[in-house]
């Protein structure tokens, strides 16, 4: 009857709007009916079992099955957000990564002389005073000219100090005066001070300019570290005042750095390199930076087909205090990544061929809710100061820089400038060093909250490097090699190249396999539902239909029965009160009962002859025409009576 056209259906629904309740008149009847007719397996057993013990056991079993289902489904739900990892390897033409190459020494020492002479003089004086080191005795190549001691006084503000009696008195480098130390002592190198050698302790003191009683004392166990740290501190001050264009000129040009270049079997030159100015490493050059829109790719692995460059490392022009090692630093990175060369660069030796074989791995994590990572960094409340795609490093550095600008009023030299800020220097921000050290300490101790705010990036590319070194040039080829390279270098330098000024670098793909490690959701909704279904089916042969049944029977029908009871009681009470016609009430209830038992009463069209004819056979069956084959027919009867009411009622109308 449900297939009747729409109007008919609505009409019928209207006709039957007074909701008829469930068939069962009482709650227990309803329960019995439910148990007998439900699709779940346990209930029926409870009803049909004979004997109290058996029934009890079945109740127990059914309940435990329900419990198991609930438990297992909860487990399934809790493990829904788990990920499985898949690794795919694909052999293909691979994009060549960007390779950023820097000289370890940031700026040509000869051209920096104007800026650093004062500082160097100071440093040398310190060396002489504290360690008895003097220029003449050493093998330092360049002669230190007499410099005009115009003397800026900020060296005086943060002098190197030598601590005689550790912690309390110190000798000032400049004045030679002893003075008392106030404030807390920070030991940069270790927390344990070797008290026996207290004479050797050297360090410097940083004071809050606004409040001179607030001082922090930094000491180092080795003078090498102390001098370098102290030098760096002043060096950054000086560099912060030099505009970028000047700094770029002070550093190495591409022609200075790159002697030869060869990529994928073809010659390349400085046009393939992009200048990238790094605050601590000066001019760096990025090969294949993708700036002009094309990214080179490799279609053959092996050392011949990678990048081969010979670098000119002018060791004679190194800053003796700032850097103490010689060579170049390189980093292999993605075109969109910022090269954190000071953090994760690889150092390249001079007078050697460094061969760097790469394996490419791409990884991808699932973001929320699977793991706490970020796709683009847009959801991180830290402004990306670098003009590159998001990474954890970038976030941490940006976060620190922001904190620095907020609390110190100026930006730290090693990181890019936020809008409207400028780099710290002594002239404008006399207090910045103290502030910086304090802040940095907080940062390291995770008190700034940067580590909490910043999240991993969800996808990242990694080039695993295998570095090996060979002697280069070989003793027999050294002669002609150096001559030809000197010739290549041209007229710019007149001297013959030394092999310790050169570094040969080969960067290549070991193979063109791209490993892609990706996380995939271990579960989908479909699989979750299947698992639910499996659990329900395994323990109780239950399905969503059963759940609906339960809701229907236990909530709607039960409620209805209770309500009806109440209604009948009220009605009866009302009738008793008002009238004494008891027969009628009896009749009414009878009718009502029939109505419940007979839900089809409103159904179907009037019976026609044909429908009458279509009555199922079983009605005729009990006719004694055929001998009943023992008890089977009896059971047949019961089978049909179960089936019958529906069709019977059709007939009755």
């Amino acid at each position: 009857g449900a297939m009747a056209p729409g109007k008919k259906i609505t009409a019928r629904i209207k006709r039957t709007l007074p909701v008829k309740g469930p068939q069962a008149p009482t709650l227990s009847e309803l329960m019995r009916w439910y148990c007998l007719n439900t699709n779940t397996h346990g209930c029926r057993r409870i009803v049909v079992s004979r004997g109290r013990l058996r029934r009890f056991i079945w109740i127990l079993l059914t309940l435990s099955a329900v419990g198991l289902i609930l438990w297992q489904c909860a487990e399934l739900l809790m493990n829904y957000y788990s990920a499985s990892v898949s690794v795919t390897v694909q052999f293909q033409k691979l994009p060549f990564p960007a390779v950023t190459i820097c000289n370890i020494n940031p700026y040509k020492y000869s051209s920096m002389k104007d800026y650093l002479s004062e500082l160097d003089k100071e440093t040398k004086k310190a060396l002489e005073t504290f360690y008895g080191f003097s220029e003449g005795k050493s093998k330092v190549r360049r002669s230190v000219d007499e410099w005009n001691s115009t003397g800026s006084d900020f060296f005086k503000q943060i002098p190197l100090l030598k601590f005689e009696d550790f912690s309390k008195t110190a000798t000032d480098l400049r004045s030679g005066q002893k003075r008392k130390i106030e404030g807390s002592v920070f030991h940069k190198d270790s927390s344990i001070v070797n008290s026996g050698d207290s004479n050797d302790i050297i360090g410097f003191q940083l004071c809050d300019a606004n409040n001179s009683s607030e001082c922090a004392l930094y000491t180092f166990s080795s003078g090498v570290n102390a001098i370098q740290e102290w030098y760096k501190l002043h060096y950054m001050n000086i560099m912060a005042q030099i505009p970028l264009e000047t700094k770029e000129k002070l550093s190495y040009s591409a022609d200075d750095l790159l002697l030869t270049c060869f990529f994928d079997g073809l010659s390349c030159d400085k046009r393939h390199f992009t200048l990238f100015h790094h605050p601590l490493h000066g001019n760096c050059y990025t090969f294949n930076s993708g700036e002009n829109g094309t990214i080179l790719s490799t279609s053959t692995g092996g050392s011949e087909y990678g990048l081969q460059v010979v670098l000119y490392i002018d060791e004679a022009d190194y800053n003796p205090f700032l850097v103490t090692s010689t060579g170049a630093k390189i980093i292999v990175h993605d075109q969109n990544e910022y090269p954190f060369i000071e953090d994760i660069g690889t150092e390249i030796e001079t007078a050697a061929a460094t061969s760097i074989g790469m394996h490419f791995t791409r990884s991808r994590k699932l973001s929320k809710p699977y793991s706490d990572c970020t796709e683009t960094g847009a959801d991180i409340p830290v402004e990306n100061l670098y003009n590159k795609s998001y990474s954890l490093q970038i976030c941490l550095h940006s976060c620190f820089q922001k904190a620095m600008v907020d609390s110190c009023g100026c930006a730290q030299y090693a990181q890019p400038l936020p809008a409207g800020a400028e780099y710290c220097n002594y002239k404008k921000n006399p207090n910045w060093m103290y502030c910086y050290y304090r802040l940095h300490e907080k940062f390291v101790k995770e008190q700034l909250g940067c580590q909490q705010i910043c999240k991993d990036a969800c996808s990242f590319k990694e080039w695993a490097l295998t570095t090996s070194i060979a002697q280069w040039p070989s003793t027999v080829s050294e002669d002609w090699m150096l001559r030809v390279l000197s010739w290549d270098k041209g007229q710019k330098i007149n001297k013959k190249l030394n092999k310790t000024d050169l570094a040969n670098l080969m960067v290549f793909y070991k193979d063109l396999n791209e490993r892609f490690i990706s996380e995939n959701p271990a579960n989908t909704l479909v699989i979750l539902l299947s698992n639910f279904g499996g659990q329900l089916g395994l323990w109780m042969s239950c399905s969503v239909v059963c759940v609906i049944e339960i809701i229907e029977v236990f909530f709607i029908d039960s409620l209805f029965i209770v309500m009806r009871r109440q209604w009948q009681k009220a009605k009866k009470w009302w009738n008793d009160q008002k009238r004494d016609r008891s027969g009628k009430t009896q009749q009414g209830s009878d009718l009502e009962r029939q109505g419940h038992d007979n839900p089809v009463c409103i159904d179907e069209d009037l019976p026609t002859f044909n429908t009458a004819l279509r009555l199922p056979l079983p009605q005729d069956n009990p006719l004694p025409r055929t001998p009943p084959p023992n008890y089977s027919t009896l059971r047949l009867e019961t089978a049909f009576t179960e089936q019958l009411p529906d069709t019977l009622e059709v007939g009755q109308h």
Partner: protein
Amino acid sequence: MNLKKYFIRALHRLQKGPGYTYKELLVWYCDNTNTHGPKRIIKEGPKKKLIWFFLTLLFASLVFWQWGILINTYLSYNVTSSLSIGFKTMKFPAVTVCNANPFKYSEVKHLLKELDRLIEVALERILQPTPGNSSENASPPLDLELWHQIPLVLIDEHDKDNPVIVDIFESNQTALGNQTAGGNQTAADNQTAGGNQTTADNQTAADNQTAGGNQTTADNQTAAGNQTACSHQGSDNCTYRNFTSAAQAVTEWYILQSTSILSKVPLQERIRMGYQAEDMILACLYGAEPCNYKNFTQIYHPDHGNCYIFNWGMDEEALNSSNPGAEFGLKLILDISQQDYIPYLSSAAGARLMLHQQKSFPFLKDQGIYAMAGTETSIGVLVDELERMGYPYSDCTMNGSDVPVKNLYSQYNTSYSIQACLRSCFQNDMIEICGCGHYMFPLPERVNYCNNEDNPGWAYCYSALRSSIRHRQICIDSCKETCNDTQYKMTISMADWPSEASEDWIFHILSYERDMSTNVTLDRNGIIKLNIYFQEYNYRTISESAATTIVWLLSSLGGQFGFWMGGSVLCLIEFGEIIIDALWITVINMISWCKGLKQKRVQARYPDAPPTVSELVEAHTNLGFQHEDTDALPRDEVLPPEPGTPPPNYDSLRVQPLDVLGPDSDAE
């Protein structure tokens, strides 16, 4: 008549079925099916009936939808990876050691004499641009034949549009042979050709552009060492390969020339000219066991001459290592005798070594690492394995048999690898296009290596092929990686060796052992110590397993069906049965309808007394009866004998399936 018999029997079979009309059938199905929804449609009141009908429909469509998703998931053949890390006894990798320099200079000097003199003079001229200063007056005449095939030229690009090309030798001989290869014009090219006498320099536009581009980089003077390669002498088909660095140009030029010379030397001779195992491998210790150069398998590698492979596993069992640490690994002392290097061929000095799997060919240019002379290089090894499932899970090959490239490295008896495939692919292309094989790769049968005499244009052909992106892509596409990929992750560290205090006696002993004399023949520039050992965790295995198996698919399908409708495969069979029944009903209805038409015609012809109601009922319900009656086939003994009497046993037969429920109702 057999068919008819069968048909009638089928009709009877149907009579034992659940009903005679569609409705009955449906009702019977809904009532008796094990699927949860339909029963409700029958049992409930009219409104609930409606609700249940829609619910059942909804659930059924949900089930089908989700099944679709599941089957799709299954067919995408996903894999899950499992990772295991640890230490276990493993086969020690095969270790290939070579000298970076392929041949002893003292042995090949006579072959390369001409070439070396040529390059020396050429360098002289490059480095001293003022002519006349060269000190060639005393030297014997140069063999310019070699030169003319592939000359080195200088390209002066001060003028972007008119780069000046100077052949280093010609420039001296023909006074001021500053021929201009003007722009891209062939006229100018011809002029150049005339000046050169030997080479027709047909500079292509692209070349000019690159060359022109150089000009922008050069501030005042860029003198680029350049190299031309012509396909044939005197032909117009020439290209310039330009280099920004003379050092690079000279090296490349020398490699091309020496390749051509050495390719004519028979293999035995080449092996003899290389480094012998007893000279190179001075000491060997594997774990606590001593080994010597005899434990190494010699292999001739075109790049590096004689290479020696330890533990290759070709003839003998591969060695196992069951302990981590340097003490249980391989310790080698090598001598690379740097004094005997060919000066122009390889500028880097050291040993080239590589770790690879047993029975695989070492591709040193790709995977090899250097070890520096005068140092001790320690290599900690982690075996990084990737075990993948083959088709259809991932596109990889188990043994290379399904790759359409003929593996030329199989002559070494080595297993398939992607590097072997790519090289074979290149060599095959080279043979096809240039007519000869490249010296760096193995040869198939009946093909010779390229050399300048037999194949004058090979260098041009080779460089064209090498830079052809299309050919590379074809090779990349046709080669597949292997399913089991093993990489040896190396942690390399170096220290100076021997120490200053110990170097005297170490050199003495090693020299004595090698040469049986007290003269010290070794020095810091030649000696290398190698330690290769397993790390504390020596393996990291990523193995794939199918994420979706057929069992998974079935249980998921079952789960879905069970979840929404409580159904199982049996329910599907039930459903199928119902459909068959419905078909039968259709057939029967059709037949009865036909019968009806016939009867009507018969009735029209012989107007008879109209059938009684009971007759009609019988006719309607018992089709078998009607059928027989009208067809009048008394021969058919299977037919019910008495019209009007239902077949005596069919109801009891129908009970039969209900019997399954027997115990249940008994319990009641």
